[in-house]
């Protein structure tokens, strides 16, 4: 259980490579099944629109999971995350025909002691932030 990234080789302020993750309706259907969250705003367009939403929206936890994947892909090992939190600040609208795309970026915000660092993450859809205060504290090698 060891990160592939070494604490001594990481500088405060360093940017991680940006990544994009596609989200389509089928992803939301699969996520509903796997997570047990069957709220119809995430899969039934007529219902989503009837409660004032522009269209079907992604589960907040699906978006958080993509931010988590961004961190664990960089780390190599998901077992070294010690703290991971987000605020859901915007909707991820998922149109039937084209879906949408999450663009995730990360910066090494702080080096703590004991090989721990804090990553600050930004997640945008069509240029708008959908997660704020997204941070992961991870233990590097």
């Amino acid at each position, binding site marked *: *259980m060891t990160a592939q990234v070494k604490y001594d080789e990481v500088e405060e302020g360093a940017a991680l490579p940006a990544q994009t*993750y596609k989200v389509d309706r089928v*992803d939301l259907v699969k996520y509903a099944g796997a997570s047990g969250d069957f709220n119809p705003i995430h899969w039934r367009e007529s219902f989503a629109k009837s409660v004032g939403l522009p269209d079907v929206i992604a589960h*907040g*936890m699906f978006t958080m999971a993509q931010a*988590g*994947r961004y961190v664990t892909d960089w780390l190599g090992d998901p077992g070294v995350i010690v703290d991971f*939190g987000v605020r859901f600040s915007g909707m991820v609208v998922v149109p039937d025909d084209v879906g949408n795309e999450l663009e995730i970026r990360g910066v090494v915000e702080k080096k703590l002691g004991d090989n721990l660092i804090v990553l600050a993450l930004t997640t945008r859809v069509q240029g708008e932030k959908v997660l704020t205060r997204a941070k992961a504290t991870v233990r590097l090698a």
Partner: protein
Amino acid sequence: MPINRDYIGRSFPPTDPYEVSRVKIGEFADAIGDPNPVYHDRAAAQASGHPDVVAPPTFPIVFTMGDTGSALTSPDLGINFAMVVHGEQRFVYERPLYAGDTVVCESTITDIRSAGRNELLTVETEVKTVDGEHICTAYNSLVERAGAT
């Protein structure tokens, strides 16, 4: 309608034990589109120093969300779930969650307050194995839109 402040500090009984299975972890990882072998292959997880397949960081939502939901359905609490959206989520991990763990959740409503026209409710959930080993703590903030009006 405001959420009933009498519920601040209210704890709920431990949940029934939840068995974390390799199949469920694999299904969840597939659903988030993550092919990381430590989520799918026991040998790969063991080669990385884990005892078994690892659960993705947000996996605990599978059993903590349902627990939170059922703890909050009392009509006396006064939440209109049609207006609820997820405000914030945080996990603080003592160790990774593995296939083979059997966990119980204990939830406490730690805060209820208004923010503008909305009502905010925060639930803290301790996730432990049935043997009492602490695995993680989940913090879940729900927003009831227009609840304060």
